[in-house]
């Protein structure tokens, strides 16, 4: 029991004394997950909007497949990326495995189906009305996609943040492709998992607290934005 309390006390100490390693881990986490989310969002939002308002053959089957991929386990993504980036894999010559770049790639692939699915379903439900107005005011394809993105920006932002939360809290993919290497590819979740296995509870608790605070801040931002309207 006392090691839990000791853990909390040590955790607060680590955070308040700005321990270099801890803050390095936190900033790498934020960097990797932010980059992955932004890249995925830039790709997926226009495509998702477009597919949502477009009528095409097999749209129903497409929805079902997409929604399945939304909850793809992160270890599977990690495994896939590791195989591709490994020395013997097709992209082995770029020497990317066990680097932050590999982590960004894995997390991008992880959240792509999520952002695409959420955007697609949003656009399918609410895009048509906006599309009609856009068409009747003389907008072309590009105008209309921009218009829908602007109209649905709050919901889209919530989706993007949801994706970010998934990215920053996942451990499977970054563990596999990053390798949890000290000072290089160690992020909040992999550190927590490792520290636990080493019996170093203070660091694990400190990082757990940080992860909680990050989610809390993100959610508050979203709520304050949606409250504005």
């Amino acid at each position, binding site marked *: *029991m006392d090691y839990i309390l000791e853990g909390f006390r040590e955790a*607060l100490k680590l955070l308040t004394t700005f321990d270099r390693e801890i803050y390095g881990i936190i900033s790498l986490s934020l960097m990797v997950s932010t980059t992955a989310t932004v890249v995925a969002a830039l790709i997926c939002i226009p495509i998702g909007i477009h597919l949502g308002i477009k009528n095409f053959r097999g749209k129903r089957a497409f929805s079902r497949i997409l929604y399945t991929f939304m909850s793809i386990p992160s270890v599977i993504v990690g495994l896939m990326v590791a195989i591709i980036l490994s020395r013997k894999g097709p992209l082995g010559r770029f020497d990317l495995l066990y680097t932050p770049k590999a982590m960004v790639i894995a997390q991008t692939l992880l959240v792509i189906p999520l952002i695409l699915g959420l955007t697609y379903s949003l656009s399918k439900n609410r895009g048509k009305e906006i599309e009609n107005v856009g068409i009747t005011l003389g907008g072309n394809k590009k105008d209309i996609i921009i218009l829908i993105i602007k109209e649905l920006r709050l919901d889209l932002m919530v989706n993007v943040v949801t994706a970010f939360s998934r990215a920053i809290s996942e451990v499977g993919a970054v563990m596999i492709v990053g*390798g949890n290497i000290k000072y290089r590819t160690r992020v909040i979740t992999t550190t927590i998992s*490792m520290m636990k296995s080493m019996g170093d509870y203070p660091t694990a608790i400190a990082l757990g607290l940080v992860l909680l605070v990050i989610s809390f801040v993100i959610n508050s931002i979203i709520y304050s934005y949606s409250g504005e309207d």
Partner: protein
Amino acid sequence: MRRFLVLTLSILLIFAMLVGCTTGENQEVEGPEDNGEVVESEPSEDGGRLILSTTTSTENSGLLGHILPVFEEETGIKVDVVAVGTGEALQMGKDGDADILLVHAKESEEEFVAEGHGLERHDVMYNDFILVGPEDDPLKLKENAPEDILKGLKAVAEKGATFISRGDDSGTHKRELAIWGEADIQPEGEWYYSAGAGMGDVLTMANEKQAYTLTDRGTYLSMKDTLDLEIIIEGDDKLFNQYGIIPVNPEKSDHINAEGAKKLMDWFLSEETQELIGEFGVEEFGQPLFIPNAK
């Protein structure tokens, strides 16, 4: 923005209060408090259950899976193996979460017994560590220092060849750090990767990076086919790895199966079991993975 700050601070405050409040009193009651939660603390008719806490490298070697069924059949006691790092294995003993430990960090183990967490400690067997590296061995250690780990590691550090460390506070990691210490080298810098991972992961990583790493022979042999890594240095006295068995002090928790733990310890030290240990791995790898040395 100010609202957030207030909220965030209040949350931190609550945590702080939790920490503060619970410090003093609860410590003493901790044992009894746990009472209701643990399953199957009493031996049941089939001989009961025993938690053996050991290290991942032991578990990965496959030894326990090979020999423990014999024990279970003989005694009817079911042994649950929890494989963690040495640090956590010892912690489990201190917390009374395991009945018996099989680990390989002699100093920590002796300390563990001296502090009263364990009853006694006996040597069971040893295996050895090896330095593995890329097949082309760019540092030519195999030629220059095939049995001298200190010389080998010095060369690695000087030339800045990539070296992957377990970095997980495991027995292997501790041994590696001890050897760096003896070589009077601070393992730091661009060339030194601290993986914080198990032996299998580290070997995979070393394979990917074509780097050097220190591993136990068993894990290396079991993965040899998938690795483009070769044994570079072996046979140095500094690379031997002694395993000890320690029954946890039953006073640590009401749930400790002291009787079963004693039986398991005696069994491990018995002549028949020692023989079993010595045979393990010979068929598959042409050499034993563990050398029994119980006295």
